[in-house]
């Protein structure tokens, strides 16, 4: 249905934009093992994006590339968190930790979707995100418990990303309409908070006191970062419309 397609588009855009961000680390990571690890995570996210976008596009007669390369900014449905710039490694880890905690619970619920395709994509994705969760958790512990500098940066990273947490759990008519086919975002919040609290407790971190930013990504209102990201991502495809690669 149109609703399912629109929902898949949201999940696909989140993953696509994140993959684009993470891809930037490849060849620039703090150690080779992280070039590999962040590359893996980027690849996983890109894979999820392709599955969700292909499914969404099937409702509109569009393929994944038409959706990724030939939509304009207001047609994207990503949440602002995914659009945030990488910052330093700690900021990237903060974003990853939040994303993985969110996506893990989201996809786990989604495996129960009455929509067989969404359930199938989620079932594959949740296994991979389980690793992302572990990866980011380990780094949160390391950075928070490493040196004075790494701890300062880890705290700053979370401060930077926290304003964009709220949007992930916002409800809107679509998810209500979807019922058992989708996941109602607010239903994930309590467990997200609990899981984050466990790690923050071990890392001796506190939830940042920062106001929640107004989101709007699901309605096509994006952070100012998305336009620049799309300019780069789409440049070649748009220069040769209709070409195949």
């Amino acid at each position: 249905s149109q609703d399912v397609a629109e929902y898949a588009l949201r999940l696909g855009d989140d993953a696509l934009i994140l993959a684009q961000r993470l891809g930037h680390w490849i060849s620039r990571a703090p150690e080779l093992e992280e070039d590999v690890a962040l590359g893996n995570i980027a690849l996983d996210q890109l894979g999820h994006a392709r599955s969700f976008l292909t499914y969404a596009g099937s409702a509109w007669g569009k393929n994944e590339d038409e959706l990724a390369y030939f939509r304009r900014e207001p047609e994207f449905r990503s949440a602002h968190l995914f659009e945030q710039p990488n910052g330093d490694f700690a900021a990237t880890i903060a974003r990853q930790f939040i994303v993985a905690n969110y996506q893990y619970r989201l996809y786990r619920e989604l495996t129960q979707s009455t929509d067989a395709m969404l359930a199938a994509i989620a079932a594959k994705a949740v296994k991979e995100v389980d690793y992302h969760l572990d990866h980011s958790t380990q780094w949160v512990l390391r950075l928070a418990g490493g040196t004075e500098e790494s701890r300062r940066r880890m705290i700053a990273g979370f401060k930077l990303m926290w304003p964009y947490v709220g949007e992930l759990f916002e409800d809107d008519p679509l998810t209500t309409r979807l019922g058992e086919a989708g996941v109602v975002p607010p239903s994930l919040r309590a467990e997200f908070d609990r899981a984050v609290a466990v790690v923050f407790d071990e890392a001796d971190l506190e939830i940042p006191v920062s106001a929640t930013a107004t989101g709007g990504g699901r309605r096509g209102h994006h952070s100012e970062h998305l336009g620049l990201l799309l300019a780069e991502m789409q440049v070649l495809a748009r220069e040769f419309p209709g070409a195949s690669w």
Partner: protein
Amino acid sequence: AAGQENFDRIIAKDSRIEPRDWMPNAYRRSLVRQISQHAHSEIIGMQPEANWISRAPSLKRKSILMAKVQDEAGHGLYLYSAAETLGTTRDEMTDALVAGKARYSSIFNYPTPTWADMGAIGWMVDGAAICNQVPLCRASYGPYGRAMVRVCKEESFHQRQGFEILLELANGTPEQRVMAQDAVNRWYAPSLMMFGPPDDDSPNSKQSMAWNIKRFSNDELRSRFVGMMAEQVKVLGLSLPDEAIHFNEDTKKWDHGPLDWDEFKEVLAGRGPCNAQRLERRRSAHEDGAWVREAASAYAAKQAATNAQKVAA
């Protein structure tokens, strides 16, 4: 002397030297130089391709390219490990690279202005690398040979992907076709020069062959590569920018036109288009990441101390 005899015996029967075996210092030094240079090439070689990850023109190509560049980081890791078995640490090798004291393959000092370069690098640069590396799978030093087996398997996969990129472009719009031919033109001579200077100007080759590290001469490998390219370029429907290529019936080898070795030496001496950029990018990634590596060690040390306490208690 017993060590030398044993070493000579192993080499003579074309068997493998392992890390604990005695080996001549010159053999060790030569291997460290070669393996670390190879590792550095994998790492620096990530950059020209990483340049297009963000702009890859389809999601499938983006995914393949990401995986490829990531594989190169993996190859770097295997190779640094192999070199470490010879008693040099990865930190030492990295420091030498970042300080501009270590070499890496000159080919990565050329830029990648277009998407077709992703095809040309895969097809030609990885193709040349494979010609060089397949014989290295039988290198006399065990850890190196085994690392090369893994590397070669992935490289031939990469080469096929590069070929596919070019094939798609060659069969695409006229502009895409021009883009493909332009990339082939630019990478042709540099990829031939990847095999190193002509045999009569390659001082280290002989010893390397005597030690069963190197198996074929630079010119032999280059000729084999030219032949491969000359065949495959027909499938692409493109051409190589060298009219002198032909199969020499007398030598049973492929000949090619003259190469501009002055340019090769210029690039080798640091005066290529991207030498400064490549080194700077590696240096800054390494330096920017120092605090992360320090944090990881500090955390590991704390954890170890805590665990030791627990065990003691």
